């Protein structure tokens, strides 16, 4: 179960805006899915290691050798707003 307050908290963490109606719908939809997910809480999992990487690969490191970077025009080509050769954003403090 997840309630309205939790939905709003999670939406804020995820930087998602939700309308009033969406908050309630999200709460009920997520609750239904979470109910199903909670079936795994019945499993005996003590001492079972978690799997975060399903295939063992060695360190797979990269040599410290420079390769060409993107030309600036290409780096900025898709930016919604550009100023002073950079990506413009509303000030975080504002």
């Amino acid at each position, binding site marked *: 179960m997840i309630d309205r307050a939790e939905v709003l*908290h999670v939406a*804020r*963490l995820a*930087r998602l805006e939700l309308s009033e109606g969406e908050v309630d719908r999200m709460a009920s939809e997520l609750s239904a899915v979470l109910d199903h997910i909670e079936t795994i809480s019945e499993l005996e999992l003590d001492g079972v290691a978690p799997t*975060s*990487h399903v295939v*063992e*690969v*060695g*360190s*797979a*490191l*990269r*040599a*410290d*050798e*420079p*390769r060409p*970077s*993107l030309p*600036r025009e290409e*780096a*900025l080509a898709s930016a919604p*707003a550009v*100023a*002073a*050769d*950079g*990506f*413009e*954003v*509303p*000030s*975080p*403090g*504002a």
Partner: protein
Amino acid sequence: MSWEPVIGLEIHVQLKTQTKMFCSCELSFGDPPNTHTCPVCLGLPGSLPVANEAAIRFGLKIGLGLGCELAPRSIFHRKNYFYPDLPKGYQISQYDEPLCRGGRLGDVRIHRVHLEDDAAKLVHVGASGRIHGADSSVVDFNRGGTPLVEIVTEPDIRSAERAREWLILLRETMRQLEVSDVNMEEGSLRCDANVSVRRAGESELGTKTELKNMNSFRFVERGIKAEVARQVALLEAGQPVVQETLHFDPQSGSLTSLRSKEEAHDYRYFPEPDLVPVAVTPEMVEAVRAELPELPAERAARYETELALSADSARALAFRPELGRYFEAVLERADGAPAQTVANWVAGELATRLGDADPAQSKVAPDALARLVAMVGEKAVTAGAARQVLDRLVADGGDPAAIVEAEGLGAVGGGDELAGAVRAAIEANPDAAEKVRGGKAQAIGPIIGHVMRETRGAADAGEVTRLVREQLGV
């Protein structure tokens, strides 16, 4: 009852690898904005990080240099939060399985050392008129993705001054490990401090605050001092210290809370699925160990214990490895001269004349300085004259004995020559001689002054005094 500050430091060190932590963009300082980016460090859809082998190696070097335990297997996590300088919406950092744990530098224990990537640079540009006249900022991703090592100490530091001193030791250690430029002003060394206070003698820790943005050694000291004073004032007024993050403004010396901005401190760490665990092999560790120089803390300890140098001299020589190396070269050739004397000549006289330059690159050969020191010891030349000789050596190089000869700087020895000069001086100052004979010891001055004038300062003042007294029979 007095208060005891308890201080732990968190230091971010930018590594001077050639390329970024997770992509092949070249590291740059001061290049035009956004000229060192690629799909990976811009966080473009579909791009993937691949860890830089040199960054891992540098991390191990730091771990070994700080006496840490190196993890045979460590993993990267994602630290999730939104900020415009963070292109992927998460920082790739190490969390519960860091590269190194434990360790010690000087008298401060190291808690852990881990790797992560740096954020980009966010520059405030003021009102642009574009967003309803609101202020705007501009992101430059050149710095984004620079490899960082984060060093976290145990709360072992007990004063702001010690924090500063220890940080200088850490900087010298990083410099000598050749892993970073460690320049606080340029941001390649950044320090946050966790500060709490408690009644002297108590063992429980007080509530701590985190101090950010102290971008010079001086500010570290001032910031911590200010925070300790603030906490003590609060506690003495019976008010609690609130756990929070504070921003130190060096201009005004004031501390402001960043609490509102970081209200949701939920980073949702989870193992980074795009990277595989870092497996450190014994061969990697041995290769790094072989590159390890003697570090300042070790070198200073060795100078103090084995050579009986003063703590100041030991640090002066140890913090500049080139001075230390040169000192050892001179000492080896100085044929029994006291180590402290050699240290004074190298760390004092020579270092003053050379400034930041490496003495090994100067015109003063270690042999030459060793001979000069020996000549002073044998009283073949006075200390004052030796300084003049050193000036000549710094300017032109050469052999000190030859310079003494050519300049006539030789000490007028204990032999007949000096005895003659003393005799002449007594004859020239009969009144003074009479007074000295009569028991007025301080009346000797004019006689000695006469000798020094006649010998142009090349006589040893002690020897002259002895001869005057001998001839006057006192």
